[in-house]
């Protein structure tokens, strides 16, 4: 995802300086999305180069505030309007591992599936615990929900793998 658009969205509510942007970004997405101040300033300077934000005055503490431009607003609007396509496949390593386990002699595939499933469940338990924290914002909870749904998809796929493996005699092994 783009930190770029996240910052533009925050700036659409009014000019802000870097530390403010970082704090607000983390508040709405939760600690699930760590963002360091360096990333904020690098992103701001790229946004400025592209004409999407402009620098304002320095305040008494020497902090520079940034404001969104008309082009910036147009870009933000385009971002909200455009659906995302799943370009990257973060679970590929697991899929490859399972496929390799199936064809590598001497590997207990069911054990690989089961170990992964328990580890994935532990991640889901942690995410669910985070969701139960008091005073959590709705935005943060929805971010955690998104991660829970993704983790659950992996879990379901592993359940499916186990069921298929249990019902299918193993192939491709000498």
């Amino acid at each position: 995802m783009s930190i770029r658009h996240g910052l533009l969205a925050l700036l659409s509510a009014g000019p802000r300086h870097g530390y403010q942007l970082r704090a607000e970004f983390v508040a709405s997405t939760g600690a699930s999305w760590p963002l360091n101040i360096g990333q904020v300033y690098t992103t701001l300077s790229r946004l400025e180069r592209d004409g999407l934000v402009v620098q304002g005055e320095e305040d008494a503490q020497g902090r520079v505030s940034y404001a969104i431009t008309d082009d910036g607003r147009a870009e933000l609007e385009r971002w909200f309007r455009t659906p995302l396509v799943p370009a990257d496949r973060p679970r590929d390593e697991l899929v490859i591992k399972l496929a390799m386990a199936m064809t590598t002699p001497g590997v207990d595939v069911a054990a690989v599936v089961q170990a992964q499933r328990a580890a994935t469940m532990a991640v889901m338990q942690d995410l669910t615990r985070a969701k139960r924290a008091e005073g959590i914002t709705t935005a943060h909870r929805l971010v955690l929900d998104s991660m829970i749904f993704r983790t659950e998809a992996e879990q379901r796929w592993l359940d499916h793998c186990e069921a298929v493996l249990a019902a299918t005699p193993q192939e491709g092994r000498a």
Partner: protein
Amino acid sequence: MSVVVELAEAARAYGEGEGAVHALKGVSLSVAAGELVAVMGPSGSGKSTLLNLAGGLDRPTSGRVTVEGADLGALAPKALAALRRRRVGYVFQEVNLIPSLSLLENVALPRELDGVRAGRAREEARAALAEVGAGHVAERLPEEVSGGQRQRAAIARALVGERRLVLADEPTGALDTHTGDQILGLLRARCDAGAAVLLVTHEPRYAAWADRVVFLRDGAVDTAAAAVSAR
């Protein structure tokens, strides 16, 4: 913390000899007060058998089941029925509320069966419904409220009185994920208030609310998985 329910090498077989089906093969598991334990596993892995044994709805062919110190196998049928009614609350996917009774009357019913006088049973039921956030629909019939509210009432019924053990079998079955989360939040809150909950589910997102997740396969606990998920 005090153990509320304990299964020790509990096994359940249907039929005998060669053709016997071993639904549960010596499972040991305990749930303490304040603990939420989820049981997951594919169809036929023994999940429901385990829950039925834990609640005394079925007896093990070998091994032992103890609820708050009472060995269920040693109880006469009448005493077992009384323990089931007084100590154990059940929440099923099919909510099983009596359609012609209001939510309040449904929740009060088990207490009246316990011998509590009607007025007090109603007071307790009203409090239990309020606790699960269904106080405002207490006077309605089950068909007049949403699925989520029916399930809330079922949880109130499972917890009314002195019940400290709640056995939940797919309690989120027909609910959308947000309502399902609320139901789990409710069970979780009851746990944090001192109840012991044993939850059977095939949905990982709900199992994730548990303190421990037990994976069953072919009637036995997968110990490798148990070690990782106990945290």
